[in-house]
């Protein structure tokens, strides 16, 4: 299968890139330590996780009503609401708004949903100039790469690689690999763009139905500038981001920033509630919100899979994943990498589109242990493995289910089933396997590329136990 082959090629490439692997290892260690330092008291942490989970779960259970309320509130506040079924629709809506306003240049704050719709590419093709204003996003825009992490999009690059990129695109600034100098250089380049851009585009972290408030979490101030300096602001987000009330925000914000970057709070937290009013000196004249479905409604149908949508995109599961730290984000080949990507992407775009993505997980449980909203990620990944081979015992709504079922593999499991459901046969098997252990093959596929082959013992446990006088009723 094409997707699976491509996936394995990307894995090989990722594992061969020692520099990137060192970058990931050091970055992820820092992020894990940072998070741990924010949660010194486990009892408090677990209580906060319970609270965050409950808020998100409630919002999902009432999502249709909350979205209606959100639309009413936003409209009353003067923010125009648009609904998009899929990526194409969302992009077209945004393009038409920009065109209608005569906008030619756009500054963007960080938005994973816009990565999902490939908005930059869409607008670029239609002659608009789009500039990413988040430093990490700006770096990968220069490098023409997708994000390798949902919170830290350029985490795969170290400062020397960034220095080279800046040298290439902005030779006038002179070479430096000092992080502060690089940040200053980026600030210089971007400030000018903020002042002159016709429009700003941003994502949304929480959309509050009660008040019609769009909350935006960021560290660089670029989000604030993108949403206030240009005369037009367009926000795009997934429909699942709605929460019921303003008082839901503080606990979610706290657990988001602590889990994501190990910060008690981010440098900037924006609450956008309306366009510029007559008596105000700044802010955009028009604000729009594009609410994107893109497969989310289908995920909502299934009671177990629904949990996927609780995600607040903190990236803690990614930071703690022992597979991600080896591969980095690009190897996954999906918009969202790591455990949340393995759980979400097959559902969002179809199992047939992601190849053997779900196999890139050792089910170690580290992700589920840190998820701030208690998404049972290992359980979801296991479920999707069953979906992939049609191994479930119930109906399913997941697209592309069964697409990875192969008859040889199915037959192997059938044989395994025969052996382990017939104790007499199994005893015969272990009798022979132990007596003939000298014949154990020295090479066992990928296993012996990195390890010696396991060898049966001289006698199985059942025989040793009987010799030692244990009862075997």
């Amino acid at each position, binding site marked *: 299968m094409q997707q699976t082959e491509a996936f394995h090629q990307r894995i090989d490439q990722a594992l061969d890139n020692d520099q990137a692997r060192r970058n990931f290892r050091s970055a992820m260690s820092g992020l894990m330590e940072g998070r741990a330092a924010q949660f010194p008291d486990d009892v408090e942490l677990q209580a906060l996780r319970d609270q965050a989970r409950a808020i998100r779960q409630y919002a999902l259970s009432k999502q249709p009503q909350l979205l209606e309320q959100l639309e009413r509130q936003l409209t009353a506040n003067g923010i125009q609401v648009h609904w998009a079924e899929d990526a194409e629709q969302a992009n077209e809506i945004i393009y038409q708004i920009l065109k209608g306003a005569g906008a030619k240049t756009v500054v963007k704050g960080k938005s994973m949903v816009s990565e999902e719709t490939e908005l930059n590419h869409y607008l670029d093709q239609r002659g608009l100039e789009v500039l990413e204003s988040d430093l990490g996003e700006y770096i990968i825009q220069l490098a023409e790469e997708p994000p390798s992490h949902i919170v830290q999009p350029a985490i795969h690059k170290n400062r020397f690689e960034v220095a080279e990129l800046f040298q290439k695109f902005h030779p006038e600034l002179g070479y430096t690999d000092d992080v502060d100098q690089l940040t200053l250089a980026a600030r210089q380049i971007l400030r000018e763009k903020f002042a002159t851009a016709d429009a700003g585009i941003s994502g949304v972290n929480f959309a509050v139905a009660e008040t019609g408030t769009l909350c935006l979490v960021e560290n660089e101030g670029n989000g604030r500038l993108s949403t206030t300096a240009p005369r037009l602001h367009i926000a795009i987000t997934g429909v699942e981001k709605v929460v019921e009330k303003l008082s839901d925000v503080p606990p979610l914000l706290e657990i988001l920033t602590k889990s994501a970057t190990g910060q008690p709070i981010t440098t900037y937290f924006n609450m956008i509630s309306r366009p510029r009013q007559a008596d105000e000196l700044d802010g955009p004249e028009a604000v729009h919100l594009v609410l994107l479905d893109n497969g989310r409604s289908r995920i909502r149908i299934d009671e177990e899979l629904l949990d996927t949508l609780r995600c607040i995109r903190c990236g803690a599961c990614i930071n703690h994943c022992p597979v991600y730290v080896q591969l980095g984000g690009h190897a996954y080949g999906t918009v969202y990498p790591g455990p949340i990507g393995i759980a979400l992407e097959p559902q969002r775009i179809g199992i047939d589109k992601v190849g053997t993505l779900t196999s890139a997980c050792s089910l170690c449980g580290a992700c589920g242990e840190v998820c701030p909203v208690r998404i049972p990620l290992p359980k979801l990944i296991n479920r999707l493995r069953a979906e992939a081979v049609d191994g479930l015992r119930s109906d399913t709504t997941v697209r592309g289910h069964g697409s990875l079922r192969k008859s040889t593999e199915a037959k192997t499991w059938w044989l395994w089933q025969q052996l382990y459901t017939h104790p007499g046969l199994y005893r015969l098997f272990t009798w022979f396997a132990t007596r003939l252990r000298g014949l154990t093959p020295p090479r066992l596929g990928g296993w012996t590329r*990195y390890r010696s082959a*396991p*060898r049966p013992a001289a006698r199985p446990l059942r025989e040793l136990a009987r010799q030692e006088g*244990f009862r075997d009723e």
Partner: protein
Amino acid sequence: MQKPEEIYFFGTCLIDLLFPKAGLAGMQLIREAGVRVIFPRNQTCCGQPAFNSGYRHEALDVARALLACFPRDIPLVVPSGSCAGMIKQHWPELFAGEADEKQARAIAARTYELTEFLDKVLQLELNDLGAPMQIAIHTSCSARREMGVADSIEALVAQLDKVEVLEQARKPECCGFGGTFAVKQADISGAMVQDKTDSLRATGAERVISQDCGCLMNIGGAFAKQGNQPPATQHIAEFLWERTHATD
């Protein structure tokens, strides 16, 4: 819970065939504490390999065959975090809606991982008879996260006067085994076990102990392939039995 009179012992398919001494040591430790150990002869496998690979029908059939081995209401002790976790955490899900769901849930409720049983139920007191030794402990992910019993192996080893535990970097990180993961994603798994063996070697420990033979097969297999005087690997039950029954 109170110390029971008797228990069922599920040796697991991996231990039965590859690491029987680990299973035997576990049974001997329990018997020595005055508990009758029953080893049902028809036991095979808990169904985990198929369950984690998506083949739930096959997993259910195998789990059902095992279910029939433990009819009486006595504890079930399993010398493996992942097999114990399969029964305790996943059987209720696997059997959901089936006629024998109730039995599966009942067995799940009385399932113990071996170190948990030795430490928390039997409250074993250990008398260290061995020579001074430095070891490292690798906690299996299933014992740590699925079963939540990682403290038991540490508590048992802490009772051994002459054993010093050295701490490896990134101790809670997965060794890369993950059952069929090690075969389906052999290269990722290989990179993971390389990191794990590097961190274990860096401690200078002469032995690596764990509650899971899956991890030990992975880590020990990688050590053997790498050569260069690696630490030995051993299951906790065998280690405890050896330390408390030194013959030299």
